[in-house]
């Protein structure tokens, strides 16, 4: 028996557990049956139908727009919070940064819904979704940034200061280049979180601003045709290529994420 035989067997089992369901989704996206209960025959018709689905396209655009805006702002605020937490060790900030990450998502969704409706009395829509996404993304960015800074030699920053650099110069010329992989990892992380978020968005989404996850949820609940499989397959292909691209150009980013 080879070394690690049982480990290999168990691991392959887990990998199968992870991938078989996704393979089923992909396979059934080519199924020529609206019911999609059993395999009937091969078709690419669901992709054609999908391409004509304006709602889906609109939802995808909304998702992208929201994710870009939210993750940009969250990266800026999160980087600030990360640096602040590392350098000044404030008391309250870590609590406020980490709690939204640590608590069940539904709580954030509920509290923001209450806040937007009862205090601000505003129309839910793009803005409310973006704000909600920023709120939970800040924590992830801050944690990544702080972890990155924690491993660094403080004397570099001191040296910059002794050379007469202003804080902004120190940041621009020393800190930023050093934490850049963390910043990019934070951005990618919040982008993924935002584009994937269902629970919080579910509570704070308004009329006409459907995101992809909401659209998929509605399709699963209401009209389950292989169109759902088709859009899932395309999304998987997209994330897969994004990850491969990232691992090709910036292998550090993936490791930073892990």
């Amino acid at each position, binding site marked *: 028996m080879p070394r690690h035989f049982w480990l290999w067997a168990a691991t392959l089992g887990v990998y199968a557990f992870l991938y078989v369901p996704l393979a089923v989704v992909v396979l059934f996206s080519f199924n020529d049956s609206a019911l999609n209960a059993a395999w009937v025959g091969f078709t690419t018709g669901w992709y054609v139908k999908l391409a004509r689905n304006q709602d889906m396209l609109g939802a995808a655009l909304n998702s992208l727009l929201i994710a870009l805006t939210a993750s940009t702002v969250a990266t800026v605020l999160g980087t600030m919070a990360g640096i602040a937490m590392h*350098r000044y060790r404030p008391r309250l900030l870590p609590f406020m940064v980490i709690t939204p990450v640590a608590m069940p998502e539904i709580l954030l969704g509920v509290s923001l819904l209450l806040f937007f409706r009862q205090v601000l009395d505003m129309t839910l829509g793009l803005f409310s979704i973006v704000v909600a996404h920023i709120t939970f993304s800040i924590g992830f960015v801050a944690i990544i940034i702080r972890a990155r800074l924690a491993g660094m030699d403080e004397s570099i920053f001191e040296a910059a200061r002794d050379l007469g650099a202003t804080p902004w110069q120190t940041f621009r010329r020393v800190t930023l280049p050093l934490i850049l992989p963390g910043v990019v990892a934070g951005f990618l992380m919040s982008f993924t979180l935002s584009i994937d978020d269902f629970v919080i968005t579910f509570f704070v989404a308004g009329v006409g601003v459907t995101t992809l996850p909401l659209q998929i949820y509605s399709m699963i609940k209401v009209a389950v045709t292989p169109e759902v499989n088709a859009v899932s397959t395309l999304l998987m292909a997209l994330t897969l290529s994004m990850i491969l691209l990232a691992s090709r150009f910036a292998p550090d980013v993936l490791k930073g994420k892990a």
Partner: protein
Amino acid sequence: MRGCSSVSEAEKAPSPALSRTLSRLRARVFPSPTPVDSPAPLAGEGRGERARRRQQDLTKWAITTPPFVFLTAFFLLPFLLVVAASFRYPGEFGGLAPLLPLLGAPGKDVGLTLETYRFFFGDLTYAEIFIRSFLVAGLTTLICILLAYPVALLIARSPKKRRDLMVLLVILPFASNLLIRVYAWIIILGPLNLLYTPYAVVIGMVYVHLPFMVLPLYTNLEKHDPALLEAAQDLGANGWTRFWRITFPLSLPGIFSGSALVFIPVLGMFAIPELLGGTGDILVGNLIKEQFLDNRDWPLGSMLSIMLTLAVLALAGLAAWAARSRRGEA
């Protein structure tokens, strides 16, 4: 702009562009009519020190405030609002009843009330939902540990070249949308007659949360010093003993952090029970969601949210206490 040139000269800044920014910043910080001296030897140590400290305070303020203000506005305040909402009546058409007059005439549902809490504590069924949710979360965590351990161990013991790929393979399914992964199980479990059962809920929960267990475990296992195992081998311990006496105890921190990453999200998850579960598979998350998006009973929903928060906090406190007492032992 006054004082511009003198400052930049004194600073001997690396580039003209930079010195310009720098001087502008200085000018903004010190709007005094006297030109600001640089920390040049002539200027006197005290003044330069003070200027520098003030600048540092400003920096601190500038980078701490924005995230702090944002999170106060959109996290802390909303959360306090949930607490407040739980003490109110539901409105006539849903939402919340008007708050004023605060005390309200008897028979009129305005102002503040403990009614929702009375409803909750008046019947043990609601506490049972919490217990059920904790059981599901615990079972999910346990299964995740059992499945994740061999994977993490194998990755940690694989040659370095292969590790990244193996980790990537664990994360990859996680990159597709949550609902897609749940939907996959609808397709699979339907013909197996397992859809709408508690098993389906647990399978779905495990599937969705597994990567959160593998990653911290792997990060932990990777750091173990192989010399320990070699030493144990030299002392005659077999594989099983080596695992239980060395690897496993050392990996406990990884198991704990992975468990936190799995347990807490499961508590609030409503989509999986809703899509995969049956009539008996109502968890706290579903109950909260229904109060807001079905029943229009916001006070009850808020109260349940608070109970969930308290439960999570208690759990976190317990974990922290356990960690501390363990460290105390060591």
